């Protein structure tokens, strides 16, 4: 690679989506699971994707990977990998990208592992298929990979079936399979939910190491805001199929703009609260993605809603810094927000203890 190519690839995103839409045909109508998402991930960068259950985090990752059901899907927009359009490629054309270029750690380890195949063989198959290793070579590498993801007694584990492993071990097997071919871009969909905090810390450290040493890019889907706080450079908050706020990690926590993001952050149970404290929740349900609300999708649940929000959809706004964007008419700190906040506090509807930390 010559100098100018190096410079270009530093600045160009490794993965880019432009107004990606992934809609499903269902009995009730079109489900807008991902509804116009534009994100960029540079080499060696990690993007955290957070948002309520059903907000489209998994479907977004799958849309980029090209891992969507064959039937009943409507796709729009552009997905680029190293500057090349891959959104329209067939499964066959994607084979050369899956595994070595992009890999994914799936959310539900039990349904993604083959229940009747020993875990060693499952890892080895991927190595043989993608890297052309011999059977014995692949098994040796598989053992090393299990060791890397901190599975005790890797040699014995190679010969076990998925149901013989604990939940956290199954999740680590999935991670080992995804890491097997040294991908440039790793999608990790809730990679540590089944892990205790000590192993979680080790796995996240391992992913960060890969990021640093191999300049791997990472899209980390998680609902654990402690994890995103510590291990991502940037965060995208999703709501009802859209990215509603995106900012560098520190900025997002320090200078939250969307009332939704604020509500999400305040529902985290905190260790400094006594047990049985009532947790603060967001009232209502996530939006129906088949019949989304007309204006702001968060409006039916937002404490700061006004007429405008019900009728018009907010465009992407830029906050104080150029890399911080959000979709809201009355963001945190705006005069309307503050006015409503005073009202809510007076009516006793704002109960969470602010700034006690």
């Amino acid at each position, binding site marked *: 690679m010559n100098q100018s190519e190096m410079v270009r690839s530093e600045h160009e995103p490794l993965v880019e989506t432009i107004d990606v839409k992934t809609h499903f045909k269902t009995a009730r109508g079109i489900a807008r699971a991902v509804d116009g998402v534009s994100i960029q991930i540079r080499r060696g960068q990690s993007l955290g994707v957070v948002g309520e259950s*059903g907000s489209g985090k998994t479907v977004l990752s799958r849309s980029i990977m090209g891992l969507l059901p064959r039937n009943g899907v409507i796709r729009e927009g552009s997905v680029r990998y190293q500057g090349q359009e891959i959104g329209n490629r067939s499964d066959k054309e994607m084979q050369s990208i899956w595994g070595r270029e992009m890999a994914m750690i799936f959310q539900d380890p039990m349904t993604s592992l083959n229940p009747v195949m020993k875990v060693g063989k499952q890892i080895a198959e991927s190595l043989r298929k993608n890297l052309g290793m011999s059977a014995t070579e692949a098994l040796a590498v598989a053992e090393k990979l299990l060791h890397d993801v901190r599975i005790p007694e890797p040699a014995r584990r190679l010969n076990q079936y998925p149901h013989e492993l*604990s939940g956290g071990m199954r999740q680590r097997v999935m991670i080992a399979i995804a890491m097997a071919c040294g991908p440039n871009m790793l999608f990790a969909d809730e990679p540590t939910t089944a892990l205790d905090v000590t192993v979680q810390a080790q796995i996240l450290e391992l992913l960060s190491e890969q990021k640093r040493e191999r300049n791997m890019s990472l899209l980390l889907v998680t*609902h654990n805001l402690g994890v995103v*706080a510590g291990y991502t450079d940037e965060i995208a908050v999703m709501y009802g199929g859209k990215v509603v706020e995106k900012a560098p990690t520190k900025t997002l926590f320090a200078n939250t703009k969307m009332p939704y993001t604020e509500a999400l952050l305040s529902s985290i149970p905190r260790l400094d609260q006594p047990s049985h404290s009532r947790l603060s929740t967001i009232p209502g349900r996530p939006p129906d993605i088949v019949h989304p609300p007309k204006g702001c999708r968060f409006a039916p649940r937002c404490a700061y809603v006004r007429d405008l929000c019900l009728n018009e959809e907010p465009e992407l706004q830029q906050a104080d810094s150029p890399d911080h964007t959000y979709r809201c008419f009355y963001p945190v700190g705006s005069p309307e927000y503050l006015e409503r906040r005073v009202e809510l506090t007076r009516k006793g509807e704002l109960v969470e203890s602010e700034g006690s930390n």
Partner: protein
Amino acid sequence: MAGTGKAHLRDDQNVLLRVEDLVVEFPIGRTGLKVNAVSGISFDVLKGETLGIVGESGCGKSTTGRAIMQLPSPTSGSVIFDGTELTTLSGEAMREARTKIQMIFQDPISSLNPRRNVRDIVLEPLSIWKRGTNAEQLAAVDKILEHVGIDPQRAAESKPHQFSGGQCQRISIARSLVLNPQMIICDEPVSALDVSVQAQVVNLLEDLKKEFELTLVFIAHDLAVVKNISDRIAVMYLGKICEVSSSDDLYRNPAHPYTDVLLSSIPVPDPTVAIKKISVEGEPPSPVSPPAGCRFNPRCPNASDRCRSEEPTLREIEPGHFVACHHPLTGGEVPVTVRSN
């Protein structure tokens, strides 16, 4: 007797579940070796109480939950639920007993039948046990679905794969609730949920607990959630219980070195706080040939010769706070009552 002691068991007429000397082993092929998944643990849960179980991945939490349900029956030990010894029940009687104890599993999607619509999945236990008329069953199901935040109409029209991971977990919680059980064993019930739904589910479980005098065993990795929901917490390490205490006390005053490591590894939702380097050294231990003495000794910064030969038993270091450790972190300041079994 090998085991971690019973000093923490309570002599209370309100005990709903009492587990003693529970051992679960899995033979490894024809090698004659076995996995010591659970190695002689004892605990009890009072009516209306929530017991949290935390510990390293693979330490035997799910196995313990399943052994209570006799899925499969433990290798040895006793499980007394509401005065009945479950380990010797016949198949039919055990099936009946299982309507009173429900379990919510770790993998939300794979525990739901992929071919049925979600409303039927939630309704199934009611129809198996012929509870009420068809109309009553449907009304009960829709009420529960509303409770857990799933639109009943959508549930009637959709299969599990059409829901997200978190939605599937709420569906399995709804299913476990329809039979009005006395006790629910929740194995990672909220780990697939985002924080706002997690908060709703935790609040929901708290409400249901009050409303129906529900008793909970709550297995989870998120220590902030466990702290919030539990009255009492048992910390497990490699098939043993190493610390038992009221929830607030455990976090304020961890006495076992492993509990201390666990609490200090919690990621803080604040990007300005530097990530702590993991303070637990060494390889995760093998449940096939667990270390002699204290099972934590190969990784413990305080291990002494005594720790390598003599197994510590649970003893009370403060009222209601029990630890199985020869050199507890907070034992020094308080008078130690040694009460070993």
